[in-house]
């Protein structure tokens, strides 16, 4: 129970035990469906947690702040806001044994399946995360640890998708109906990279750099650029200047200003739209 998020999740999970329905096995499950999409630039994780009757009833009771038996929009929003930070800490991603930082892509989304009452029902909680893999190679193992609602028996399914030429294989068929995990234990989703994604360039020069290695413009480079841009010179220099100006203008328009730096650690697909540059 070392994780600071535990008290919140455990509290929500264990709240309302008396409300549990008859001892229905599937009704006591939470279905964990992980969609893993691997591309050149990002690994995207979409985790759908479908709460079956018993757990849905517990969570619904936690949502119903005023205890009037119905869950209003502000109540469900407030529930999500409180929950979100703890949720993010319970999911981790490892590629080839190395943990990658997962970033929530959107705020969690709650689908009460058209039923805003408390009591046994089903509902879905959807979480989005992404990570930037440094370099994915064929044979790399991708492991997602999901420590969400560990007290609930889980039905787990993994969906994989490779993009940018990447081929991903889900883990070997194993036991999807995990027994309730012990506190601190996580459900593991395994996948393997069969074919690494192609490193793509979207528009020539539209590269971005390794996260955390933000390029500092080298003073010498800056000086050379200034000289080229402002100095008169022979025809070759003019052509070069004209090209550089054009490139810079396009770069600026694409909003990828900082790629002028000299430390191009890794080629990455840029966020910028694909614009072929007329060079």
């Amino acid at each position, binding site marked *: 129970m070392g994780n600071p998020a535990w008290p919140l999740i455990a509290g929500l999970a264990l709240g309302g035990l008396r409300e549990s329905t*008859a*001892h*229905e*096995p*599937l*009704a006591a*499950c939470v*279905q964990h*469906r992980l*969609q893993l999409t691997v591309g050149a630039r990002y690994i995207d994780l979409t985790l*759908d947690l*479908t709460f*079956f*009757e018993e757990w849905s009833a517990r969570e619904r009771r936690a949502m119903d702040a005023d205890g009037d038996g119905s869950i*209003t*929009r502000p109540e469900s*929003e407030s529930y999500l806001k409180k929950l979100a930070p703890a949720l993010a800490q319970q999911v981790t991603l490892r590629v080839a044994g190395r943990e990658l*930082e997962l*970033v929530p*892509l*959107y*705020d969690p989304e709650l689908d009460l*399946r*058209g*039923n805003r009452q408390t009591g*046994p029902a*089903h509902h879905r909680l959807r979480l989005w995360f*992404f990570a*930037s893999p440094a370099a994915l190679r064929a044979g790399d193992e991708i492991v997602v640890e999901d420590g969400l609602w560990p007290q609930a028996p889980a*039905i787990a*399914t*993994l*969906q*994989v*998708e490779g993009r940018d030429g990447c*081929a991903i*294989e*889900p883990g070997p*068929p*194993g*036991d*999807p*109906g995990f027994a309730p995990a012990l506190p601190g234990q996580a459900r593991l989703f395994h996948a393997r990279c069969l074919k690494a994604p192609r490193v793509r360039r979207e528009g020539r020069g539209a590269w971005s750099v390794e*996260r*955390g*290695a*933000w390029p500092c*413009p080298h003073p010498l480079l*800056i000086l050379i*650029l*200034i000289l080229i841009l402002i100095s008169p010179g022979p025809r070759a220099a003019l052509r070069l200047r004209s090209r550089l100006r054009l490139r810079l203008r396009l770069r*600026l328009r694409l*909003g990828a*200003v*900082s790629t*002028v*730096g000299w430390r191009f650690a890794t080629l990455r697909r840029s*966020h*910028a*739209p694909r614009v072929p540059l007329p060079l």
Partner: protein
Amino acid sequence: MKTMTRSGLRAFGFRISPTRPLFAPGLAAALALAAGAPTGWPAEATPSLPSGIVDFAGRLSHNHWYLLGAEQRPELEALNRELREAQQQSRKAADETAQRAAGERLAVAAGRLLKRVKSCPRLLRVDLAGGRPVLAAGGPIALPGDSAALLIEVRAGGEGVSYTTSLADLSQPPGESSLVALEAAPGGTTFALAGLEHVPIGRTTLTLEFRRPGQSSVRVPLDVTTPAPGRLKLTVLSDDTGKPAPAMVQLLSRTDGSSRQPGNGLEFAPQFDKQGNTSGARAANLPGPLHEPFWCVPGPVDMALAPGTWQLGARRGVEHEAVFQEVTIRSGQTTQAVIRPRRWVDMRRRGWWSGDDHVHCRILSHDDAQRLLAWVEAEDIHLANIVKMGDIYRTYFEQRGFGPNYRVADGDYVLTPGQECPRTHDQLGHVLAMDTTSMVRDTDHYYLYDQMFDAVHGQGGLTGYAHVNSGNFHVHRDMSLNVPRAKADFAEILQFNTLGTDLYYDFLNLGCKLTASAGSDVPWGGTIGEVRAYAFLGEKAFSADAWFAAFRTGRTFTTSGPMLEFQVDDALPGDELRLKSDRLLQVRARAWGDPKRMAPLRLEVVRHGVVIRTAESADPPRAEARLDFTVDAGAGCWLAARAYAGDGTSAHTTPVYVVREGLRFWKFDGLAELLAKRLASLAEIEQMVAEARRLDAQGQLGTDRARKQLAWQGDALLERVALARQLYEDLTRVAEAERPRRASLAH
């Protein structure tokens, strides 16, 4: 060199530490300023994000991108990622350099977002700085449909930029006031993104309420209009007849991604006895967009729909391609769409007919049956085993009756009543029965599953274990008692799109025959037929009896996507090849799938559970793999084919049993381990009974009828444990008897 000023930075919404000096060190900053983006962050500055910007960016890119137009969506998506990643980077920065780098990223991304928001033509402006709030809106705001968003720049005087989001569901209380509450910063400029759901058609007066900390809230009325709806007429055609047919349909707004129930989308809640997911919106345990909710429509859809672009999705089971197409609905106009999901395979022509062994649904009336038949036809499942469910306390999903008289058919689609009972969750697992003539449930002998198996077989029915793929509910325990006694016919090895074979292989490796089956377990499962069992009828005409007869022979395979054909010499799955001498066997296997979603595809042939040959679809667009090879029959074995598709779906056949005269087809080399597992399962049953008896003797069971019955039925159950133990001892003796023969064969 241009210098970035504090006010210039603040204009982008950044708070600057007052103790840090500012200067712009390089050309990058100047270039950025020229481009309208703040960068070239001063070395010492430690910027913090404008409050709410990350949430704002997420909602704008994910839910309300339409405000800026579809062409801006990739950029919004990129900005959202950039902001969130940089925020995380900033949070975890270990030193000042890393902090500065993160700050730089944040600054660039925030500046780009601000620029885009400010240039949005739909941006409304509210000035709260003066005595009276002023909303600059020239007339009512035209919303694109019944779900939309407002983008508002709230000026409260002073510097600073912040962001806020809200969501108002006008169908929720207090709906009549149409209140849209927005939390704004006490000063500076707040950019607010207010999502609106269920906005009535026509003109609506909203009350925008701006709440600021330490100040009284300010209300401003705002009129919005939604256009008159258009009309959608959607017909899904059968690819077999070209006529309208039941289908699974999805209506998804391209504006905000929300889905709508088709006008005639069926609800099954009353038939689900308040169990499982009672909604008619069925999210299948299938890959990608198929996982989003679809509704069963029994025929053409004809409904009013908000103007805008809609994605129509239609599917008719795994043998058909799923179709997604966009239509534009215009006010007052009728849009017609006809979708004909194309078959990528017709398994009927190959003699294979689909079934789902595990569907829970009440059928008490003709209407109940017709609704369910529509669903079965929409998913193109030819036989659905509609199971009444029971436990030791009660039953669920009532049926009118059992047997052929209570089957309901429409052409080649049939509902047949069956049962899932006994079901014990902490003791012995869940069992299924098909083709029965009455419900078999005896609570006084509830833990004696063999009695139910015998009774069902006496009726001419089929018995099997549910949830074998997951091993849930300790199903291995009763399997250890009754599979070696040949009491059960089939095992559910595919469910929730998860193929699980561990337990299945353990029993096959002991030389026990079990037919591979699959069941959706609706309403806990996503949709009928998301996993299915195909039975081989060959040239025979389809009927429930023919399907059950084929299933009884074990000629089946299960799938959630790819199709399989498998033959060893002339034997099909479930067949037994009896050999008098060793010889080579010709193995032919083929796996193929919907080329649009299942490539690449891997086909494997397993012998005693071990992969002996693999093939992959070499040509990426063609999802097909074949194997054709010979294998030594050896001392006998079981051989099966399985397939894994690129989209995460899978398939598995029942084995072909290769039997050498006088020998079992078991995995001889692994017997010790296999038997040890079974004996461990039996020991668990003994412990379970002993525990129930102890608690009962101590009077601790109270109203726990399940365990009281277990204590009372313990003697009879332990007799069966003893019988099974004897059986496993016999198997050990058989193994010893086989050993010399096997040794001679090996030489």
